[in-house]
């Protein structure tokens, strides 16, 4: 039963964080949570669905742009209005792109997602929508208000942090439920042996498309809050370099777990901060580190676990080979 102990401890730590560290770290934590959410969203498609997508940044950025476009000048936008709109836009984009891309398989799927992601990038870069290549500002943080009464102003870093944390927890809960449900098992079946899944009667295209759309919608939530926090949106938010970077986070965190990507995001963000502060040529070092991680740790950071905490005697090799889907929760 120790499976739930670690998550509970981490959650408690996350709740306590703002009260023990300076505001800068709270904002940093918010950023890490937002990217973690994006990574978890991507992992639904990549790790659980077996669909390597290089366009998730487009869903992320699109939601941010919707906020920028809907935000009324210098007043705070209504979260209850703009967030659903942003998520809907991302989901719609994922629906169209997914429906087209899922007509191909393997490498071609990756290429097609990359291409469509770039298409959205160019849409915002070359046309006059929201400032073109210059980007656009989100001048005020959104607020949660009903009928004109403000319930929560996200301008406060503390409030912002807790709202983001709430969404992250909700995402973890949603993904865990999905992964353990028949849907998640069907998705894993399609990933592990498409031919067998198909001949059993599972509607493969539909399962994958649903997963892809959900994944895009969740990426949209992350993008919305990213735009809100940063206060600015630019076409680079939709760029495929970001998509690839999030894929690295997913790899680091471990493809089969639900919360792993959160760790992957944290690791990569911290790494980037440290590198940027150390050298001008941080991209070079980051590139090499990525190459190293890919070659040395294909199973993610969890491969290091046994080295750090020692092999647990009660965990027989067989149970570790158990269905990754049945594992479900972060273990």
């Amino acid at each position, binding site marked *: 039963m120790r499976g739930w102990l670690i998550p509970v401890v981490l959650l408690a730590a996350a709740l306590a964080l703002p009260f023990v560290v300076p505001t800068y770290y709270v904002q940093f934590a918010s950023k890490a949570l937002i990217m973690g959410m994006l990574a978890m969203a991507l992992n639904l498609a990549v790790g659980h669905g077996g669909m390597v997508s290089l366009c998730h940044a487009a869903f992320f950025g699109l939601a941010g742009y919707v906020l920028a476009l809907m935000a009324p000048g210098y007043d705070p936008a209504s979260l209850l209005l703009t967030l659903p709109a942003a998520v809907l836009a991302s989901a719609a984009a994922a629906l169209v792109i997914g429906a087209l891309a899922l007509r191909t398989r393997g490498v071609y799927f990756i290429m097609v997602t990359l291409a469509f992601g770039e298409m959205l990038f160019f849409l915002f870069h070359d046309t006059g929508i929201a400032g073109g290549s210059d980007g656009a500002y989100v001048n005020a943080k959104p607020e949660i208000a009903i009928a004109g009464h403000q319930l929560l102003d996200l301008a406060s870093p503390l409030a912002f942090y807790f709202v983001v944390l709430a969404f992250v927890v909700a995402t973890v809960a949603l993904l865990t439920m999905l992964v353990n449900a*028949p849907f998640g*098992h069907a998705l894993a079946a399609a990933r*592990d042996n498409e031919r*067998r899944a198909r001949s059993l009667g599972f509607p493969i295209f539909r399962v994958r498309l649903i997963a892809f759309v959900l994944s895009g919608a969740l990426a949209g939530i992350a993008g919305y809050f990213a735009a809100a926090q940063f206060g600015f949106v630019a076409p680079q938010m939709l760029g495929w370099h970001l998509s690839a970077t999030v894929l690295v986070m997913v790899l680091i965190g471990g493809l089969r777990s639900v919360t792993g990507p959160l760790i992957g995001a944290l690791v990569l963000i911290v790494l980037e901060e440290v590198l940027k502060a150390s050298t001008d040529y941080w991209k070079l070092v980051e590139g090499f580190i990525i190459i190293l991680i890919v070659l040395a740790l294909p199973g993610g950071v969890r491969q290091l676990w046994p080295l750090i905490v020692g092999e647990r005697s009660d965990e027989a090799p*067989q149970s570790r*080979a158990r269905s990754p889907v049945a594992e479900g929760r972060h273990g």
Partner: protein
Amino acid sequence: MVEAASNVALRATGLHKQFGGLRAVCDVSIDVHVGEIHAVIGPNGAGKSTLINLLSGELIANSGAIAVGAADITRLPPERRARNGLGRAYQKTTIFPKFTVHENVRLAAQARSPSPLRMFGHVRSDAAVHERTVKAIARAGLSSQTMIVADRLSHGEQRQLEIAMVLATDPRIILLDEPLAGMGQAEARGIIDLIASLKVDRAVLLVEHDMDAVFELADRLTVMHDGCVIASGSPQDVRMHPAVRSAYLGDHGDDA
């Protein structure tokens, strides 16, 4: 063998399949009744694999018709055929290697449940699916291995697993593609007995090279050669058929 018309589980008529200039299957008709094992034999290149792929939906016929029960499945993709009551085991055992026996069969049972893509509720909580799973595993003789991860099973056990999975979808017609390939004597015995037990409440189409097994199991036999059916009927009749003798069995003194 009583053959009631309403018991026809699978009927294919006039199937044609061409690959460029190569005629792989030409005007093949075949039917399988509930309660019988209908075997398809023929030398390599006779078109047996193409035929089974046409029936299961991996290939679409150029012309002809296929029906499972009353449903026309000629143009349907494999997943729709499965939901119409068709199950298939592959020549190269096709299972989910990283899942346990129980999880493999449970997936199959889930596929035929009313809401196979339900997004909430743990898979374990569906009692009907669980019951179908346990029954299918028992019928395939794998109850003692139910918690073993599939890729740790022996070759024969994996075949049993695949059959269990097909059973869990409760099909009217089961297509078996060379189930005895690569089997030792002892393992083959187990599979043969399992196959024989399948016909009780459903129809079985068996493509196989092992002649001893074929003549032990088959209620009816169809012989293919160069893409066409050259003989069809009871095993005894087919054995004596001159075209079959010359094309396939040869005159090597294989006495009936």
